[in-house]
């Protein structure tokens, strides 16, 4: 095999990003790269182009049992660590709570200072002002969180035969531009079929996403922009989806 040099690097870089170098050549290429880190960025760009091929395959519905198997392992491995690590939301709420406690303590300290030494009154007043400002900021932050939560939880329940059978499905509007269908307790669909979301504008249904009911909770983005008066519907279609609905809606709601 020829010695690796700049010319050879140029010759092999396309095969390298496609994972198409034989083992020995790959090792030699990577050793050269380790000694020439300035070439890494160029290689990353080329790898991004090769990586686009990953988006090419025909879309296949992942089997629901795959999710179940993966999540079984993940849950089992996460459980022992749960006590030690909190979620971001919990940490965020904890942060708010801690801040409140901290400001409460600061207020008590102020009272003590006032009774202890009036000479410190000017300083205390300043501190009080700071505490009020900070408390105001916390209140604003909490209000912002409440607003955010209100915004996130704007939902419309879907009705239909699946809802009658106990499914709990909602369309959730998140930050205006993101609409998501979230559902619990959906019945499974037969092999070779999938659920398709439709946004119906007037009488015209537009395909707006596919999902396969699976796990405890199903969530699927609605890919068509919606406005008031549109109808969201879900039908069961052949795998890969249809251009027009081929069955009656199992869930629907007018916005």
């Amino acid at each position, binding site marked *: 095999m020829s010695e690796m040099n700049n010319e050879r690097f140029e*010759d*092999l870089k*396309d*095969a390298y*990003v*496609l*994972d*198409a*170098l*034989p083992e020995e050549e790959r090792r030699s290429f990577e050793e050269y790269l380790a000694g020439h880190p300035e070439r890494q960025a160029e290689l*990353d760009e080329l790898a*991004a*182009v*090769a*990586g*686009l*091929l*990953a*988006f*090419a*395959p*025909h*879309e*296949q*519905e*992942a*089997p629901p*049992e*795959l*999710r179940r*198997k*993966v*999540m079984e*392992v*993940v*849950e089992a*491995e*996460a459980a022992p660590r*749960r006590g030690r*690590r909190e*979620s*971001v*939301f919990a940490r965020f709420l904890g942060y708010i709570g801690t801040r409140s406690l901290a400001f409460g303590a600061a207020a008590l300290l102020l009272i003590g200072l006032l009774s202890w030494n009036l000479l410190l009154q000017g300083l205390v007043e300043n501190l009080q002002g700071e505490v009020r400002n900070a408390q105001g900021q916390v209140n604003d932050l909490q209000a912002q969180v409440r607003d955010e*939560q209100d915004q*996130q*939880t704007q939902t419309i329940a879907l009705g239909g035969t699946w809802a009658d059978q106990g499914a*709990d499905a909602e369309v*959730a509007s*998140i*930050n205006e531009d993101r609409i*998501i269908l*979230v559902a*619990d307790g959906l019945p499974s669909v037969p092999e070779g079929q999938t659920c398709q979301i439709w946004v119906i504008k007037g009488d015209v249904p537009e395909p707006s*996403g*596919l999902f396969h009911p699976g*796990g405890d*909770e199903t*969530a699927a983005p609605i*890919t068509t922009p919606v406005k008031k008066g549109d109808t969201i519907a879900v039908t069961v279609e052949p795998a890969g*989806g249809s251009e027009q609905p081929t069955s009656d809606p199992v869930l629907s709601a007018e916005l």
Partner: protein
Amino acid sequence: MADRGRQYLILADEDLISLVEASDAEAFATLYDRHGRAAFSLAYRMMGERQASEDLAQDAFLKVWRNAGSYRAERGSVRTWILSIVHNRGIDQLRSHASRRRTQDKIEATAPRSQPSEAFAETWCNSQREHVREALNTLPSDQLKILELAYFSGYTHVEISELLSLPLGTVKGRMRLGLKKIRNFFESRGAAVPR
């Protein structure tokens, strides 16, 4: 329905991967729901049958779970990272079963194809896929075939040259031209290559 679960849905992939690094199973489930289909589709394209594809996708997602800390945002999106894990594991598996696939691929590789876009003539459900599809459709079939044999079937350039009875230099040249055309497709539209 859990509001907490819904809150995860609005987080960006990069935020979710940070939570996964901190062993947050719910964040991982959200990532799986976003990218499971694309990962399984790639696994299926590489392995060619359902059980092996499930095993590959499972293996890859568990690697995502256990190695979330190795994700580097500057190297590309979370989706690209997940797909690269599927791809790398797939290549390893294909190479360990290389002899079994050789005959089947030889038949496929030598079969005439009417259009270079034939392998990609399906419905695409998002704009990124559409752009990639358009880019791939600009490739001549001989370039596309070599990219496919390398990327999806795990053949080295030497093996492809033997398989197609082409000089090694020709294989390398077609790889280079194929990748260049994909890049040019995006640049000619004033867009960056998606990462």
